[in-house]
């Protein structure tokens, strides 16, 4: 187990550097001169040179990168050239929105998916058909389109839920929950599909194993056999899919936040691309990477909990 976690961390550190270097290298290719952009059109050549000097843009690229990373390691993600707002502030303001969205999206996807997959493995019939339908829909409908369709039906048509916008939890918990219903639904459908399919396959395999028969022969009830012994043994492939869904949700959130006008990291990225604000992009890239690293670690730990053989390794 310790080895597994160490290995994960050993992969994670280069990961953070690879992503930050990648984004940083891309910056140097950019036709936009940050100093020029900051100064606007009115500045003189002297002012421009002074600003370039001040921002360290005259240094070789690798030196710019090490300077940047030195700041990052001290928790300073620099400031937006355009607005002067520190990137850490921008991210801290928006992180709760995105975290709420992706965590709820993945959790809802997992719970519904596991329930549906288990039901269709044990009962088949109606649940099997429902699962086939959901997995087809989850596969076919891109989440931005699904989000719009949900808005058309539940916000514009039935007027049950808001079509977009965000209410902070601290302001109004109920409003917060209501504002997240449609975005979470749009984000989680794909996950429900993949989780349900994996759960069904894995459960069918586990239910045919000898120990299930032994437990039944000992008089244990269906509930314990399915939900305790069945699910725990069937969980490992499902957990791998949860991991993939988390990474997928980071992509999904960019589109879903845009559809529902949510002030999260996804919409921050979109506006940063439009404004060519590389500091902001770099900051979000690192934040996303750190989220991935944390999720991977949690997933590895859960493997250990689920499979005692892994724990011993």
């Amino acid at each position: 187990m310790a080895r597994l976690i160490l290995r994960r961390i050993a992969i994670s550190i280069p990961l953070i550097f690879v992503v930050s270097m990648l984004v940083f290298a891309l910056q140097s290719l950019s036709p936009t001169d940050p100093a020029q952009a900051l100064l606007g059109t009115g500045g003189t050549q002297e002012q421009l040179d002074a600003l370039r000097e001040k921002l360290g843009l005259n240094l070789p690229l690798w030196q710019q990168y090490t300077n940047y990373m030195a700041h990052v390691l001290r928790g300073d993600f620099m400031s937006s050239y355009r607005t002067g707002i520190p990137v850490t502030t921008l991210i801290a303001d928006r992180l709760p929105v995105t975290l709420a969205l992706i965590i709820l999206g993945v959790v809802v996807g997992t719970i519904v998916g596991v329930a549906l997959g288990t039901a269709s493995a044990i009962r088949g019939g109606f649940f099997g058909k429902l699962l086939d339908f959901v997995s087809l829909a989850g596969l076919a409908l891109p989440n931005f389109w699904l989000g719009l369709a949900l808005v058309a039906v539940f916000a514009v048509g039935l007027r049950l839920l808001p079509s977009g916008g965000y209410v902070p939890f601290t302001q109004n918990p109920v409003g917060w929950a209501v504002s997240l219903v449609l975005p979470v639904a749009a984000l989680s459908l794909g996950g429900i599909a993949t989780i349900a399919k994996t759960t069904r396959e894995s459960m069918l395999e586990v239910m045919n194993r000898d120990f299930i028969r032994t437990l039944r022969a000992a008089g244990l009830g269906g509930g314990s056999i399915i939900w305790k012994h069945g699910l725990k043994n069937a969980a490992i492939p499902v957990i791998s899919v949860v991991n993939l869904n988390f990474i997928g949700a980071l992509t999904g959130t960019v589109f879903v936040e845009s559809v529902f006008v949510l002030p999260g990291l996804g919409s921050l990225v979109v506006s940063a691309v439009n404004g060519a604000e590389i500091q902001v992009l770099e900051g979000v890239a690192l934040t996303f990477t750190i989220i991935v690293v944390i999720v991977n670690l949690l997933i590895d730990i859960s493997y250990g909990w689920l499979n005692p053989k892994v724990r011993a390794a």
Partner: protein
Amino acid sequence: MTAELATATSSVDLRTADRRHLLRRAVTFPPLMIPLSVLLVIVLACVLAPLLSPYDPLAQDLLHVKELPSALHWLGTDALGRDVLSRLLFGGQTSLLGVVQALVVLLVVGLPLGLVAGYFGGIVDRAISVVVEIVMAIPSIVVIMAVLSVVSRSMLAAMVTFGILGSAGLIRIVRATTIAVRGELYVSAARVSGVRQGSIVFFHVLPRIAGPLIVQMSIFASIALAVQTGLAYLGFGIIVPAPSWGGSVAEAAQLLAANPFLLVPSGGIIAITIVCFAFIGDAFRDLTVSTWSASSGGQPSRSDLRRGGSRLVAAEAAQSGGDDGGALLSVSGLTIAFGEGDRATTVVEDVSFQLRRGEVVGLVGESGSGKTVTALTILGLLPASATIRAGSVRLDGVDLLRLRERELRQVRGSRIGLISQEPMLSLDPAFTVGNQLGEIIRRHDRGLDRRQVRARALELLEFVQMRNPADVLRRFPHELSGGMAQRCSIAAALAASPDVLIADEPTTALDVTVQAEILELIRSIQQRTGMGVIFVTHNLGVVADLCDRAVVMQRGRVVEQADILTLFAAPAEPYTRQLLSATPSLVEIPERTARA
């Protein structure tokens, strides 16, 4: 060497034959041909858009804006009166082109690297694998966004980036398949006989990879299309009046309140195309799996927990068996079939025998004789594909076959216990021995608290003569030896002191010395508890050693049953004699006779 080469050539021939066969099957495989045809129609329609589309995609008709489908505009018009159908046909060009760009990059990057890693192995493989692992953890969207911010929002750049990032997954699959193919006889034979590496990879490895490669590429295409349309929806890589599928969704979003129908054509075409890609992948997987692997037998039937397994079909189940002659357990006229209707096979036919209190009955026969099926029927644990056609299983006069699942649960464990064949497989690998044993103990005696449950578990393990029982409670099944695991299984079966113990080949999977220990344990438990034991085995030596009486089964029928001395001294049936003569170890009988 020559012989090896001959094998190699013939197996190569086999492969080419298989490949031609695969192609023929592919053409006549509807799950592949239907999505492929639909996709072809969509692609052709988009490519031929200049010829097919009824209007210029940019032409505005301000007299007909936001219209629903009509004879004039088949899919309606948008906010500027532009024809939706024409915009989708032209828009498909950029969307599908984006998918093609990503696929080409995926293939160009992923295939060679995967082949190299899998074929050559060693340090190259390790280096590639580490990079793959890192790339797979990169949240691709931010890299794509960074690229878009730099390369003047070019869709080509975004799709190329997506292809590169996605190639990590392809490398993994190509590598794994290459490693598998590389180890096969005909490939190593070709290598030994000096065929050039390049041509081995090209002629022998590549064809085998084609299947998984196409599967992976179809899945990737469906994701690439979702990403491409998503980026276009966000307004990246498309210059505004130009049509694109994602852009059409964005235009529909502007009119959500006025004309929600506009969402349908754009979403519909995106969904249909994505599904086609995905279904092509699925179909190819089905095709290649059944072509390359011989073991394409039927799916194992789903174990039907809720319904409690098999159904009792025949109402004519022997009502006449009232005279149990004081037997504890009485099986009479039992007939069981697998499968449905015409394809049903009878595996157990008119089987009857009895078990008295304190008696050990051997159920003997070769594999396939129906002895295990008979034993499992007693516990109501037949797979769902089995049907009980006739007969009864009476425990103290109550017919177990007529009980419902809930009632059967009261019988299992507390009246009848089971020890099964593979001790390592019959314990749940995810829980400690203590946890499993504890759960079973609590199931039968709900009043116990934590400490009492633990004490009872320890007592059970001591009863089955386990060394270090306290330590074993904390262990997981994979930390036990086969003999220890079987002792745990026996302890679990004894948890509620059943009257009947069914032992289904409990020693077959164990080492010889451990076998003797376990047999001795079962004998001593039987003597201490006085319960009835049904001992299922193919080993007549064990029967002679342990049983009072034996029921000999062959092809689902009872051929002979008698007490052990009669059976061994004067077997009535030819089959029994045959079995006896095939068991050399029966010199033990006199010893047993003396003790009996």
